[in-house]
């Protein structure tokens, strides 16, 4: 991934900034310029809580290039308490004991890097929410 493309996403990747439609209150992550619910195009920025539950997941054992030394890793869809769903890696867990419905909390982590000399890309991952 090229640096400008990553850099542009920093408000989402670093701060989980979503868009709330001023007309119909629908919450969108990633933010939109056109509300798919009502067609309006005015939004307010909302920082998501990062807390939610795992709705489904898989364990990637054959990774794509850029992730080859990370396998196996879990990727899942978390539904945040605000109702927004997003996909991310699930880390700091035993992949074989993950269960749908587990409570999750978002953490700031390294997502990938462009080789040994390229830029490091940070973003959100989820860890099982055990109160620490």
């Amino acid at each position: 991934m090229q640096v400008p493309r990553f850099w542009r996403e920093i408000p989402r990747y670093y701060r989980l900034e979503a868009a709330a439609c001023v007309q119909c209150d629908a919450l969108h992550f990633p933010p939109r310029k056109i509300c798919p619910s009502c067609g309006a195009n005015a939004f307010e920025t909302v920082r998501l809580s990062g807390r939610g539950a795992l709705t489904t997941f898989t364990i990637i054992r054959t990774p794509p290039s850029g992730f080859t030394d990370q396998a196996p890793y879990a990727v899942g869809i978390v539904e945040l308490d605000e109702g927004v769903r997003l996909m991310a890696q699930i880390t700091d867990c035993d992949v074989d004991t993950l269960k749908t419905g587990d409570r999750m909390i978002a953490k700031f982590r390294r997502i990938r890097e462009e080789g040994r000399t390229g830029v490091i890309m940070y973003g959100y991952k989820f860890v099982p929410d055990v109160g620490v």
Partner: protein
Amino acid sequence: MRDVAIIGIGMTRFGELWESSIRDLCVEAALACFNDAGIDRLDSITIGSMSSGLFTGQEHLASLVPDYLGRRNVPAVRVESACASGGQAVRTAFLEVASGMSDVVLAIGVEKMTDVSGGEATYALATAADQDYEAFHGVTFPGLYAMMARAHMERFGTTRDQLAQVAVKNHENGSHNPHAQFPFTVTRKQVINSVMIADPLTLLDCSPITDGAAAVLVAPAEMARELQRGPLTVITGIGHATDTISIAHRADLLHLDAIELASSRALGMAGKSIEDIDFAEVHDCFTIAEILVLESMGVVPAGQGGPATLDGLTALDGDFPVNPSGGLKSKGHPVGATGVAQICEAVTQLRGAAGDRQIPNARIALTQNMGGSGGSSVVHIVEAR
């Protein structure tokens, strides 16, 4: 709109075709198609390829293909909708003929996937997903479908055996297909015990990486009547729809809205219902995909795709045969070629030329092609007249 008929079909074998470049594949499929059609005329070309650029570095197929077909100056366009690119090439060709803009149009689907490494191919395939909010996190296509599979198993009780049966059935069919990449049978046990790719999907749940091309020639039905010796095969319905690119945004993770809408629009245009369909070629990029498609098209109620498959509903001799060609699983999945190859199989069956995999009295076919994780789908209804 004019009625549109398919007057010729042709394809390469599907597999790891080391000796063939992307232009070689296109030429081979086109030559086979023109031989089959028995005419020389060509007004226009549509080309379906998901990512010739990422797989081979070659864009501008719209210039390369007519050039190497020896058809300098013929107009051409490449259309793209990830794995539905082939179906879109056929649809675009149909539109040119139906509208009266062109008379004879060649639709080619092609993908040359084996020049890059496995990891690079996985990356290229993942460009069909949301790059910034799915692929960025290291998810692969098997991973996306695996998440749907897990949810399907948890919500409906679909079992590993039921998923595996999709692969078993398709391999059984593909073992009778001379163009198939993997023309051999497999057992459910082999499927379940093959190496895990993304839990719960194993290697044999997944369609392979394949080289290949397929081509169909379309023309006004009137012209086809004058030219053809055999049965007329007409495209009577086309449906096309989209859904969110990211599976996290789907209204229901386990219902493919794009497939439901595309098939109902196609059937509506053809004036048919799903019960009228004699057989279907569907997009089994993964075993779970075939089950989701069956349910989303209303062939079976939601959650019943697994049991129905295990019961034989979709076997060659079942009430609703699915993927007599062997599907993507056994025949192979050169991404852009698949949608066109589905039409080739439909026509072969309707002509009664499918040999050991012939479905008796095949008159009305449905082909369903989809992109990515169901973000787009195009469905064709093809009938023998």
